Each structure stands twice: as C-alpha cells, then as structure tokens.
C-alpha cells in the first residue's frame, strides 16, 4: 500500500509538472505536442549533471544544480518549437512530432557517444546515477519521500497564481484566446507566446528529470520517456486547462500508472489477473471518453494552434 502511494505521488508529480507546462503553452496559443521530446532532453540534462558532479557534492548543491540543468535543457530545446511555430508560422503538429523524434534520437546519440568515448566496449545508451539520486530522497519509515513532490506542489501553486492573479498570466491567456484583441491593447503576442513555450520547456524538462529518477537509478535513453509526455497532455485535457483540475487528474492518472507497476502486491488485484497493460491503457481510455462528452463545449484556449499573423485581423 505504501508503495502504491509512493509511486502514485511521484508519477503524479511528473504529470503535474509536464501538464502544467503544456497548459501554459496552450494558454499562450501554442500547442506543445513536443512535450515528450522536451522531457527526454530535460532528463538528459539532469542525468548528465548528476554524472559529472564531483562525488562529494552536498545534497543541496546536487539538487539545485541538477534541477537547474534539467530546466535549462528543456528551455533551450523548447526554443526550437518557439522559433518555428511563432516566428516562422510552422505547423505546430509537425514540429511537435519532429521534436519528439529528435529528442529521443539526439539523447541516444549523445549518450552513446559519451559512453563509447569513455569505454569503447560500452555502446549502450544508459546513464546511471545511483549515488547522486540519494540526494533527492528522504526515507520516512519506509516511505521514500522525494523532494520533487514538494517542487511539483510549489510549481502548481506558482502557476495557478501566475495565470490567474498576475498581469503577465492574464495577458498570456489573452494571447491564446484572442491574439488580435491582445495585440490591439499593446501586448506583444510574439513575446507572450515565446514566454509560454519556454515556460513549458522548463516544466517539461524538470518533469523529465523527475520521471527518470522515479523508482530507478539508471536510464536507457533509447526508450525515451515511454509516453509520459502524451499522458501529460491527456492530464491537461482531462483537467480542462485549469491548474487545480490538472492536479486531481494527475493524481488519478498517476495512480493508474502506479497500479500497473505494483498491482501484484495487492491480493485481490493479483487474483483478478488483469495484465498490466490494462492499467496503462485506462488513463487514455478515460480521457478519450471524457473528451467525447465534453468537447462540444471545450474549455480549450480558442486560438491555440493558429499561428499569429500580425497582418490578419
């Protein structure tokens, strides 16, 4: 039971972070389908930081540097999406898909190059960070508390306040609802959309780092992040683009994901003998059903996915 709660919370942290990233980006008017790729690159940044930190670094330094590196990697990578979709009006779906493929391919190439440069007999795409990972964990009576859970809650509060209570957040959302109207009162739509995409890159990159440190101590970058970026999109839609709802959706979906890992620990679930695939599948099925019933009155930002053109009113 403890294990289920632990996994649920850590998976929910990943989903909250990445879904909030997607939420900010979409509120600014850019659909960020590349979250999966951004997560991989963020995870890569964090993992490399852990790898190259000197062994004796204190826990605090490790946490701060690793998190910053993951965020930085995510931001830089997401600028690829921003420049093409905002400045060059590229199709957001194509670019997002490209970023997902590019993220996994680039991470694999980089890690393999590093590994085989260190040791020519090791052409794997794996980075391990067993010792460094301990900095993130605090063991409370068998429950592995993870500092990332705090970060996720903080991010949730910050994003909710930012979107609804600050001038910046309200302006950002205006750019996703009606960019022409926003521009007419002097808001720079391009700048706001850039901010939205870069913030989603930061949160996505951080989410990627959290994902690869959840439960495991080494990561094979060939595998990407196994659909968590897409699952986060599902969380965001299920949460109707609102931070508070996203949090509940993340906990629910995180629980399904956790169940697929630990269901054999529950006698009544193990007896039912449901393959783990079913638990993995459920979040997607639920979102699809919810979408089918709610999309007529969708709360999605009105102008998302449409490149903003100064000339068209």
């Amino acid at each position, binding site marked *: 039971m403890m294990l289920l709660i632990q996994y649920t919370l850590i998976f929910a942290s990943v989903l909250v972070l990445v879904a909030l990233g997607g939420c900010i980006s979409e509120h600014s008017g850019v659909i960020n389908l590349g979250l999966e790729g951004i997560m991989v690159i963020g995870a890569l940044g964090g993992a490399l930081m852990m790898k190259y930190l000197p062994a004796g670094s204190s826990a605090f330094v490790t946490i701060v540097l690793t998190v910053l590196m993951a965020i930085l990697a995510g931001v830089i990578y997401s600028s690829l999406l921003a420049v093409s979709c905002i400045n060059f*009006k590229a199709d957001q779906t194509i670019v997002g898909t490209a970023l997902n493929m590019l993220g996994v*391919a680039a991470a694999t*190439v980089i890690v393999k190059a590093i590994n085989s440069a260190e040791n020519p007999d090791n052409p794997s795409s794996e980075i391990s960070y067993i010792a460094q990972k301990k900095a993130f964990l605090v063991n409370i009576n068998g429950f592995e508390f993870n500092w990332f859970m705090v970060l996720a809650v903080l991010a949730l509060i910050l994003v909710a306040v930012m979107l609804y209570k600050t001038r910046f957040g309200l302006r950002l959302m205006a750019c996703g609802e009606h960019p022409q109207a926003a521009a007419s009162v002097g808001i720079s739509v391009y700048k706001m959309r850039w901010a939205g995409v870069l913030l989603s890159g930061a949160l996505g990159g951080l989410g990627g780092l959290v994902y690869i440190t959840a439960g495991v101590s080494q990561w094979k970058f*060939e595998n990407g992040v196994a659909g968590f970026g897409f699952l986060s999109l599902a969380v965001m*839609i299920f949460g109707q683009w609102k931070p508070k709802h996203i949090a509940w959706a993340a906990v629910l979906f995180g629980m399904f994901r956790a169940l697929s890992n630990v269901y054999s620990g529950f006698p009544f679930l193990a007896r039912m003998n449901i393959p783990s695939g079913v638990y993995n599948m459920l979040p997607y099925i639920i979102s699809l059903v919810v979408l*089918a019933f709610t999309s007529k009155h969708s709360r999605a930002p009105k102008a998302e996915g449409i490149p903003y053109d100064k000339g068209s009113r």
Partner: protein
Amino acid sequence: MKNKTPLLKRDGVQSLIASLICVILGVFIGYIVLLVINPAGAGKAILAVLKNFFFYPAGPARMKYFGSTLVKTAPLIMCSLSILFAYKVGLFNIGVAGQYVAGVGACLYGALAFHWPWWLCMLFAMAAGALLGGISGFLKAYANVNEVISGIMLNWISLYLVNILLTNVKEPTSPYTFKVLSTSPGSVMPNLGLNKLFGNNQYVTLGVPLSILIAIAIYIILERTQFGYELRATGNNKNAAKYAGMKEKRNIIVTLIIGGALAGMGAALLYLTGIEEWSCSQSSVPGMGFNGIAAAFLGCLNPIGAILSSFFIQHITNGGGYLDKTLYSAQISDLISAIIIYLCGFVLFFKTYMNRRGAKREDTRFAPEPKAEEKKPSDAESEKGGGAK
C-alpha cells in the same frame, strides 16, 4: 518554357526545391553532429549512411540489401499515404502510428492463431486500422474531438491492447511472437519470384509492388475522381463544401477510415513477410507511423513523392546500420530524419519567401526563367539519394 507561370512560382517546383533544401540541410546537420562526436571518421560515416546497400560491390549481396530496404519501405509508403490522404482533407492523422500497431496485432493474430491465408490476414489488419481511424473520425465529426488528440490517445490504447492480444501467441521464453514463417507458412505473402531478382532475399514479396500500386491508386482517387475532389474541397473549406451539398461529416469519417486501412495494410505488408517479430513488452509506439509523417511532408504531400521520400528515409535509416559502431550510433539516421521533419515545418516559409522574391523580380522586369533554369539542375545534382519526385 512556353508556360506563362515562371518556373520558380509553380507550386510543384517550389515544393520540390523546398524538400531538397530540407534533405540537404538535414544531412548537413547530421554531418556536423558526426564531426562533433569524432572528427576523424565523420566523412566516411555520413557516406556510409547515404550509401546504405551500395556498401556492397555490385552483385547479389547489394541486391539483397537493396531488397531489405525495399521491404521496409513498403509499410512506410503506406503510412505516409495515410497521412497525406487525411491531410488533403484537412486532417492530421497522427493516429497513423496506432492504426499501424492495430494492423500489426490483427495480421499477426490472424496468422499465428488462426493460420489464415495472407490476404485474409491483410484484410483483417486493414479492418483493424480502419476501425481505429473510424473512431477518430466519428469523434471528430460528431463530438468535436480534435483528431490529433484522439489519435494520440488511440496510439497508446492500441499499443497496450496489441501487447495483451499478442501475448497469447508469443514464445514462452522471450517477449517476441512466434515466427510467421515456421508457425503459419500459408500466411506469408507470395513472393512472385521477386526474391530471385533481389539476391534470394526471401522477404521481398508482393508487398513491395503492392505498396507502389496503392500509391498510384491514391493519386488517381485524389486527383481524378469526384470523390477525391469532394475530399479535397472539404479540406480546403469545410463550410463551403457543406454549402455546396457535400456531406462533410461523412467525408471526415470516410477519410480517416481509409487512412486507417492504409496504415493497417502497411503493417501487414511488413509483418506478413516474416522479416521481424513483435515484442510484447514494447513500451513505446513504434516509429513507423511517425516516420510516415516525415515521408508524407518530405514528399510534398504527393503520393508519387511519398514513394521516393519513403525510400529515401528508409534508405538512410538502414544506412545507419553500416556505421562504425565503435565511433557512432545507428540512431544518427533517426536524428537526420527528425531534423528533416522539423525543417519540413518551414516549407510554408520557404514558399512564401520564393514567391516574394519572384514578385520583386517581376517588378523590376527581370525575366525569372534563366536564373531558375540554372538553379534547378544544380540542386538536383547535389542530392544523390533521390529526395523527392
């Protein structure tokens, strides 16, 4: 050049140039990455990627590996056809990856569990893909669910479903399914003697010519039939099509059903040759569908272009296998294809830019033809792998 439209302003020519630019830039960036990893072998490595089966001296070996590339090109052509067909109707069928997976599940289950003949397995695969496409289409038409979102959800749902389904027909000790060749020889596609042509490569079957025929059929449907015209009209302006009496909801659903069937058939064309098995512990949606997106856009959304671009993408993907593994990883090919799709996002910009330049030239009364004539052959020459058209 009696045509009134200047060469550079014709849509086909512009698309071709844009695609070539994407390919050249993609390969160039790949080369730079190789240089960064290890400057010494980079030149040789990028040539290995571009050469692929030309690695072997002329003869049966070269033909054999040419054949292997073709076998994997067939499903890619089908996936890119699925994308471009839907795109003409204004739909982004990102669910192609899931429809492909559903096709894999259906054809392998038909072959391994029921020992059906190959054509029945293939129809089953098409039906499975069509069903998924149909769900996306229905949700789009009647519940206003964006086909991209429903497609992504269905991709994962079908991945897990197929994993569960095919667990029934997998080897007890490994995650892989039984081999089609030994378990159900009747389900393997006939090779029509094509294997003799390709250095006795037993995997070269009917699938390769079939995919090309389908591409031509799709071209004819889109360009030469009333049905295709209606679909394109729906894509250009949904409301205008509705006003003109076309059933736009039906068209959306039918399009995605056809798209799904194409993707499912692509899966059958690969898996019914027995060239590979499905791993039931697969945790991510296979890249074939996503590569199809790359091929569709690189091929300028033209079915004939899709044949060539699919071949090119598969060519460099297989070429990655010839890299010196101690220096570079084979994923460099994936990297190049990903960069190419990323650049395809800029095609619209390239085109606007070319149009604007063309317009400027007309203002100053320059004849654009001679310049354009120079430009085209030089572009065509610098690209050896055969990018598009």
